[in-house]
């Protein structure tokens, strides 16, 4: 009895010691990275044995949180402006700012939709079967700004204005269309290619010259708890292995623009 008690204690002690060795970082990332970054984080965990905790949400929300002292180790923003502002105000390490890619937007319609996006392109938005068009809120969501810019450059904005419904972020916008409540939406290419939406609809890539580039950037906030591991993670995202994942979800490195 005594021996088994002792060995149990030993096992617990060993487990605790091991737990202490594996380090952990918390990463805040824009919701368009939900799938790509989850894959990449798994790769990093397999390779190094360290843990990556991922929090996905709107870039603007994370910006406010970091401004107010949230201790994220890395911040991936769908808009380069947020990390730039953090760097400028000294709340993030300016030298770590890295533009990792640019996002693309697509027209997306659910399976069973009468719209032939490939043939119709942007004119699908004017089809009489379209009663609601979901875009992200242009007031604060980068993908919403891009969607609005694209609508304006196709001279469609004033015509479709009354049909727009605004998602709080790009994932919620996807929900609106995927649930059938909106007939068409302007989504991130990365979401259109994600496993959860892949078989559920068709998409058409909106020409990237019709909206300003959606430059996405990562930075390490000054309040990061484990800066060394945060740097190691960013280095890993730069490896060809991780870059291939980003490309697979439609994020193209800036030099390919």
């Amino acid at each position, binding site marked *: 009895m005594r021996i088994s008690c002792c060995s149990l204690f030993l096992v617990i002690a060993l487990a605790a010691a091991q737990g202490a060795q594996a380090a952990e970082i918390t990463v805040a990332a824009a919701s368009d990275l939900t799938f790509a970054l989850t894959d990449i984080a798994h790769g990093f965990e397999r390779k190094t044995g360290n843990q990556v905790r991922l929090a996905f949400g*709107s870039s*603007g*929300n994370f*910006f*406010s949180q970091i401004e107010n002292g949230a201790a994220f180790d890395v911040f991936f923003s769908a808009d380069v402006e947020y990390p730039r502002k953090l760097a400028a105000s000294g709340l993030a390490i300016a030298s770590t700012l890295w533009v990792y890619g640019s996002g693309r937007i697509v027209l997306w319609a659910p399976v069973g939709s009468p719209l032939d996006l490939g043939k119709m392109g942007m004119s699908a938005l004017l089809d009489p079967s379209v*009663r*609601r068009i*979901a875009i992200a*809120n242009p*007031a*604060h969501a980068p993908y919403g700004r891009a969607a609005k810019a694209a609508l304006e450059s196709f001279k469609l904005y004033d015509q479709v204005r009354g049909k*727009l*419904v*605004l*998602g*709080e972020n790009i994932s*919620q916008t996807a*929900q*609106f269309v995927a*649930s*059938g*409540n*909106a007939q068409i939406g302007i989504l991130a290419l990365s979401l259109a290619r994600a496993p959860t939406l892949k078989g559920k609809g068709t998409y058409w890539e909106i020409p990237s010259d019709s909206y300003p580039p959606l430059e996405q950037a990562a930075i390490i906030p000054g309040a990061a708890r484990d800066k060394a591991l945060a740097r190691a993670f960013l280095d890993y995202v730069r490896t060809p292995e991780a870059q291939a994942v980003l490309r697979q979800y439609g994020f193209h490195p800036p030099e390919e623009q």
Partner: protein
Amino acid sequence: MNWQALALSIKLAVIVSGALLVIGMPIAYWIAYSRWRWKFLVESVVALPMVLPPTVLGFYLLVGMGPRSPVGRLWLRVFGHTLSFTFEGLVLASLIYSLPFAVQPFAAAFRSVDRQLMNASATLGVSRLRTFARVIVPLSYAGIVTGLVLSFAHTLGEFGVVLMVGGNIPGVTRTVSIDIYDQVQSLNYAVANQTALLLLAVSFVTLSVVYAVNRKVWVL
């Protein structure tokens, strides 16, 4: 400040609390006086929106109003559009969401009415409906005002459900709480602060009315 959003929220809250007065009173009457042994199940259903996260209600409403659910399909066939992203959709969502805030104070007030007065009314040959109108309601006015005011305030402050099924359309579904959220997201802290302060003041006044009425500060 976004007056359009504020006006929309007030319109929504007035419609919803008014409708809940009409819908809530019979439900509360039944809950207060029924002796059915399974009554507790109905009471639980009425109270559910108080404990459920708005995301649960919002999720089911989004799917339920959508064209893939039987209800959504039926609505689409009759009215030519789905309920999601419409003001009527928000009214329906708020009716469900604020139901317990009306029904529970109503029922509590009805229950505290002296049974002997009701019996006396019955022995005088007065119908149940007239007894309700002439005896129960006047004696329950504090509870009725409480339910009315609480459901008004709760609808005014509703956020999660509106965010999930509203679609943020100016003048249609962009309520004041959504507007505050958007202002914070866009880093317009000054504007957000103005609207938030106003809502804070309105909420405080509303609750003060409830407590004052219940303490019988003013004799009506």
